[in-house]
């Protein structure tokens, strides 16, 4: 049984050429692994492809609005959405609203992420921690956080505290789940090796377990930030006079389709920015990842 041989490319490690004996004595030559190679894509091509679909959607939207296929009461035209953005920008409300939402999200996500991270690590590294925390957290994870809104309203009222806590509550579950999985997935041999070097306790967690679980933690952060947008919409619909969620609610009250679409565009833009920020953090915090990914 001889597998197809591939000529190694320059610079690749020599593949195993040795045969191995099977039970019946046949000699088997192992295949030389094919080097996956570096698939460097042209940056321009990559960026063009990335933007192609959103731009095509935008063009279709513009054409459909111009030709009259789209009723402006159903979906405002790109032009009117841009005009709404300009109007809001000139009055200074756009920056105020973005700042207010950003502040709520930042505080809420920080609190939620801190709680989720601590619980996830405790549950991941200790059997007792898992027994104490995991069943409750799994139940908590199954509860849609929006179902807690009436309860949180009666506990905290409609003020800033409620909004921040709702966002924090939304961030705890994904942070916990991914951190727990990440910590559970840390190679036992690595931990044993670190222990051999005298690392234990907080230092072991901070210097070995956390960096190994970092891909999961960053994925959790990405999800927490996205989920926090949902929390923001829910929180800012109630009793506020500032924020993007408030703008959604205002545009509904005043039947302003252009502002409704503007809010959707703003959420999409925030989503892209979150993704970009996490990608940058990933690149900085995990430089080794770029060489070991599947492509």
């Amino acid at each position: 049984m001889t597998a197809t041989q591939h000529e190694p490319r320059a610079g690749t490690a020599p593949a195993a050429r040795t045969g191995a004996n099977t039970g019946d004595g046949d000699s088997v030559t192992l295949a030389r692994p094919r080097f996956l190679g570096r698939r460097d894509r042209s940056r321009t091509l990559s960026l063009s492809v990335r933007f192609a679909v959103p731009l095509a959607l935008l063009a279709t939207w513009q054409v459909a609005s111009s030709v009259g296929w789209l009723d402006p009461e159903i979906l405002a035209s790109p032009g009117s959405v841009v005009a709404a953005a300009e109007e809001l920008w000139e009055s200074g409300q756009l920056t105020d609203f973005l700042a207010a939402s950003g502040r709520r999200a930042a505080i809420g996500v920080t609190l939620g992420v801190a709680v989720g991270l601590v619980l996830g690590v405790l549950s991941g590294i200790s059997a007792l921690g898992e027994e104490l925390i995991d069943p409750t957290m799994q139940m908590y994870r199954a509860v849609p956080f929006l179902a807690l809104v009436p309860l949180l309203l009666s506990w905290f009222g409609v003020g800033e505290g409620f909004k921040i806590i709702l966002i924090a509550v939304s961030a705890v579950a994904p942070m916990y789940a991914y951190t727990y999985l990440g910590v559970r997935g840390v190679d036992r041999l690595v931990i044993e090796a670190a222990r051999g070097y005298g690392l234990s306790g907080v230092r072991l967690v901070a210097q070995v377990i956390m960096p190994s679980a970092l891909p999961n933690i960053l994925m959790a952060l990405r999800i927490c930030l996205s989920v926090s947008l949902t929390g923001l919409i829910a929180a800012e619909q109630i009793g506020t006079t500032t924020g993007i969620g408030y703008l959604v609610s205002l545009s509904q009250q005043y039947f302003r389709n252009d502002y409704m679409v503007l809010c959707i565009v703003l959420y999409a833009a925030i989503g892209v920015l979150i993704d970009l920020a996490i990608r940058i953090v990933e690149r900085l915090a995990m430089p080794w990842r770029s060489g070991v990914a599947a492509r």
Partner: protein
Amino acid sequence: MTSRLPRPRLRRLAAAVALAATAATLSACGSEDASAGSEGATVIKLVDPGNAGLLAYAKKTGVLEEKLEAADARVEWGGSYGSFTATIDAVRSGDVTVLEGAISPAIGYLSTSDDLKIFAVADRTKNPKAPVNDGLVVPKDSKVTSIDQLVGKKIAVNKGGRGEYLLELALDQAGIDPSEVEKVYLNPVQAAGAFQSGKVDAWWAIVRGYPTAVAAGAKTIVASTEVDDNDLTILAARKELVDENPEALKIIVDTLAELRKEGNAEPEKFQNVFTDSGPTATEGAALARDTEVDRYANPFRPVEDADLQTIQTVADYFSTHGFISKPVQASDAAVQLGS
């Protein structure tokens, strides 16, 4: 494959993050505490009045704050809510203690809670020059021309509020059993979308929904002026506020009544009070309409004996038509200030 950050740097980073989070949390709590205000004074918590109307003007000029000093009370302006019904959670949690609305949604609230009291009312204008406030509308391309053609059709209304109340009255007047139409319970915002996309055949449009629908070409089948309703515009307050400082509530009624006179004479200055741009700003036909609404609106007055009878009539209608599960007594629902 561990982090390359040296430990002191890592610690400093962690400390900085923790410090920033704590500071941000404290500042968030601080902003709430700062508005908790001077000791002893009664706090009147009002909703954000938006960009038009008496309360918006009062907020801008500070006239309420000024007058309420005499009753050792002060105003705290809160968040924005779409309607009386949307404000209910905030009323229950005590974040809003005085709010404006109509008898109909207040009765809906009072059938399940007894912590709210109607303390002032304003008659709806009968002036024929005043714009119509709400009505039963059908899409512009609908073949329906009268309410009896809506038998078996879907009609959107807000549950237990003014929309459902007026629709039932209109159906009663036309001799149609309410069970012969299919009521679809939607709040005005949801109903606007359903109506626009043709998911419902008609809609009893209220608040801003009616003028918006009419401006978009919808046809009015029944206007609210054609229905003999007993609804009044009201001001309601949480019970503990009524007990604690009725004098402050009397000042609110008097101040708003004075502002109404100003509003009737110069309605223009009560429009676009804070801003001429953004989603809350009105222009063109909408601005002209809102101006006319203010020109003909009636002032608030404290609840009188006759008003108790009106409230009872609406409450009984709600009860007999099954809008509410528990009857409401006007004497419990309203308070006569100074009596």
